[in-house]
């Protein structure tokens, strides 16, 4: 059994109620709740997410380079929502930072949040991939 989060899984479900604590990388319990505990669908959803999200992030990167702040905000917003739904709380939080920065018109801050966002996604991707490999066996 490989841990899929930075903190022990036992605290995962309470993370949202404790803003001081660092966000979970992947809140599997919340996602399972939305899927009515259907592990099969969980894997399918994870696969879709892992297939789709890299392009979303690339799109965001490109938009940041063009400096179209409104488009950056929309794209960040989408990433934020998608990640939140998947239980990718840290990625969602990073996307929210980017969205806020873009909304404020702070292109620099938005660009700076990009590093955290990509780091969080990389982490999430690793956890999710593990999850997929684990459950397939």
């Amino acid at each position, binding site marked *: 059994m490989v841990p899929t989060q930075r903190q022990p899984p036992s605290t995962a479900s309470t993370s949202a109620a404790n803003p001081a604590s660092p966000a979970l990388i992947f809140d599997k319990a919340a996602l399972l709740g939305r*899927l009515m505990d259907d592990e099969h669908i969980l894997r399918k959803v994870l696969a879709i997410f892992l297939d789709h999200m890299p392009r979303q992030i690339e799109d965001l990167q490109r938009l940041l380079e063009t400096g179209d702040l409104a488009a950056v905000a929309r794209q960040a917003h*989408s990433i934020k*929502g998608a990640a939140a739904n998947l239980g990718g709380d840290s990625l969602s939080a990073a996307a929210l930072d980017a969205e806020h920065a873009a909304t404020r018109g702070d292109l620099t801050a938005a660009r700076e949040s990009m590093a955290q966002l990509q780091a969080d996604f990389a982490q999430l991707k690793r956890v999710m991939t593990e999850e997929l490999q684990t459950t397939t066996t």
Partner: protein
Amino acid sequence: MHVLIADDDPSSQTILATFLTKLGHEVVVASNGQEALEILQQTSPPRLAILDWVMPVMDGIEVLRRIRAAPSPRPPYIIMLTSRGNKADIIAGLEAGANDYLAKPFDPGELRARVGVGQRMLEMQQHASESAARYDQLAEQSSTVAWEVNADGFYTYVSHVALQVFGCPPDELVGRVHLYDQHPALGRDAFAQTVRTLLARRQPFRNLEYAVQTDHGRVAWIAAHGLPLLNPDGSLRGYRGSSTDITEHKHAEEQLRIEQENLKAIFTSSPVGMLLLDDQSNIVNANSVLANMVSRELAEILHQRIVTGLGCIHSLESPQGCGVASACSNCPLCQSVSNVLSHGSSVRDAEFQPALLVNGQPHRPWLSISAQPVTLHGRKHALVAVDDITKRKAMEEELRAAARTDRLTGMPNRALFCDRLQQAVLRSQRQPDYHFAVLFLDFDRFKTINDSLGHDVGDLLLRQISGRLCATVRSGDSLSRQAREHTAARLGGDEFVVLLDGLASPGDAAIAADRLLQAFAQPYQLGEHLVYSTASIGIVTNIMPSDSAEDILRDADTAMYEAKLAGKGQYSIFNVSMRQRVQKRLNLETDLRHALQTQQLFLMYQPILSLQTGAIESFEALIRWQHPQRGLISPVEFIPIAEDTGLVLPIGEWVLRQACAQFIQWQETMGQAAPRSMSVNLSRNQLVLPDLPNTIRQILTETGMAPECLHLEVTESAVMKDAAAATHMLHAIKALGVKLDMDDFGTGYSSLACLQEFPLDVLKIDRSFITNIDRGRDFAALVHAIIQLAGNLNIRVIAEGIETAAQLLTLQTLECDFGQGYLFSQPLRAADATAFRVRPGLLEGQSASFGSEHAV
């Protein structure tokens, strides 16, 4: 439920889709706003949509705005997906028409709950819209307008049916028209006041009826019901109600009311009895005329069965009545009513005699009944008119009898007699041993008695004749073998007939006739007068029958005539030769009509001589008829026909004119030898002509005849028929200057009275005296007395019918002035008359009897 998920993120789509599918929904997915809009605009779109706020191509809020902008009968329930805590988005979404919102990442419990809310909301909407549709459909199909008015009475809602009911589309009413504007046909102000009062009272109302002039130009009757609508604070918001077109109902009601009033009026005012019966023959209504008919109170009749109500009993033999049956089968009254009720057939003026129990007594009035079916309150009824025609029937019977009765004597008349005779004829044709006879009676001298003693006495005589006739016919019942009743009848005048019905033998008729002759030989006491009026009887028996009653009567009449001719107080049995004689007479009558025009009539002249000198005093003109086939016909034969037919008048005039003309001619040709006068007979028919004196004067003038040379002869019987009128006429004639001769003197009853009454110049002593003058002293004495009397009255005397020298001698001895007869000459033709001379020596008694020819 059919659910749309619109999210551009594939994983989010999958999560939502998975979740909702597992909840049992049917999920469709859109990846951007445009797709979502297209799906929602399909014909059968998802009922619930979960729209992500931010999507490519078109955001969720734009989809929302477009969906809400287009009106839809079934708008979708829309849940917005927003970022957690983004209040601005939530408010904007709800304002754009979102039903609910959900934050991302969604909480499964929350999503389930919010979708559940949406589902219930949609179900409620569905229910409400079905309910509304149901209501609308019902409202459109009914003839009742649903409406609402505000507190001021203005329409705020009117269902579509208003177009049919009020003739006005709803949108022309709403907001513009008062409830009480709908009312021009009755007093508008009063109606408006009624409506205002209702609104003020805030009470429900029902069946408020009013008339509406619709746009189609007709007047519609409306019945309105209304319930008050109150605001939460208790103030009146308006009324909600319905208005129904009750025009047809109203008309039907009115029609029914009119019919009922008519029926009531018919019952109370009808002069005949009226009955209304239900289908069980119960008397629903009746009038007092009917009650009186059966001597009962109206209340006793009502609600009874017809049989008990009228006391109907089907025959007098079983007065217990018809029992409990609703209609008795034997009673025509019940039967006709029953037919009306069961077959719906009408009865019109049916007349019959039902048996009724009136005041406990059987009673059989004649009733005329008309009955017809009517439908009242959906049930068959019979309306019956009953007229009591008992009196009319009795009167008809009386008239029928009267039409067959002789009013004077009460005997059967000609019509009834002919009926019975015809039956006898038919019977005799069927039964060889059946015999009948008809006796035709005519009473001698009846006309004389009637004319001289008056019609009252004549009628009295006829009644006595009737009495004797009936008594004798009855007593002659022994003649009847078959117990049939003989019939005695009066045909009219003094003509009576008897039918002897059922004789043992035809010969018995003669026995009956003899018996009648004896009965009528007795005199009658008519008041102070004692008169004789014997009967002449003609008999026809079925040995020699004609087929028709009228022919038999004719034959009997002929036989009677023969009896009369043969002498009075006799009977004569009809035979065929009589019929031939009658035919001959009829032929003669026809020929006589032509005789005048074709100059078949001519005059002969018989000289009247002075018995002393033999000089011709006068000629008596005598008529003759030279018939082309039958030769010379005696006046004895044709004068009665001329008198019967009235031909005697033109013939008489012709005779007078011809005789006068002949006299003038003789005067011109003979000079001194011409006769001194001309004698012409006047018939009794001529004497009653008021114009006779003028006619005579005219002929005298025409011919140039001197009045004093014309002797007009009248018979005693002719003038004595109506002596007063005759006296007047004779004086008028005498005033012309002509001479008057009394013919046949001595044959009447009042010969001497003539001498005093009438302005006579000459008496002609009847031949019956002259014939007997030398056969006994009495006649010669009578003639002598007449001659003496006449001489005293300065009246000259002519003796008629001198046939022998002995008669002549006696008359000469009695100093009779003039005479005529075969002794001297029979009547001569005009040419011979001029040459006539008395045979020399005749007046001196030198010749024997001239002959025995009858003078005419």
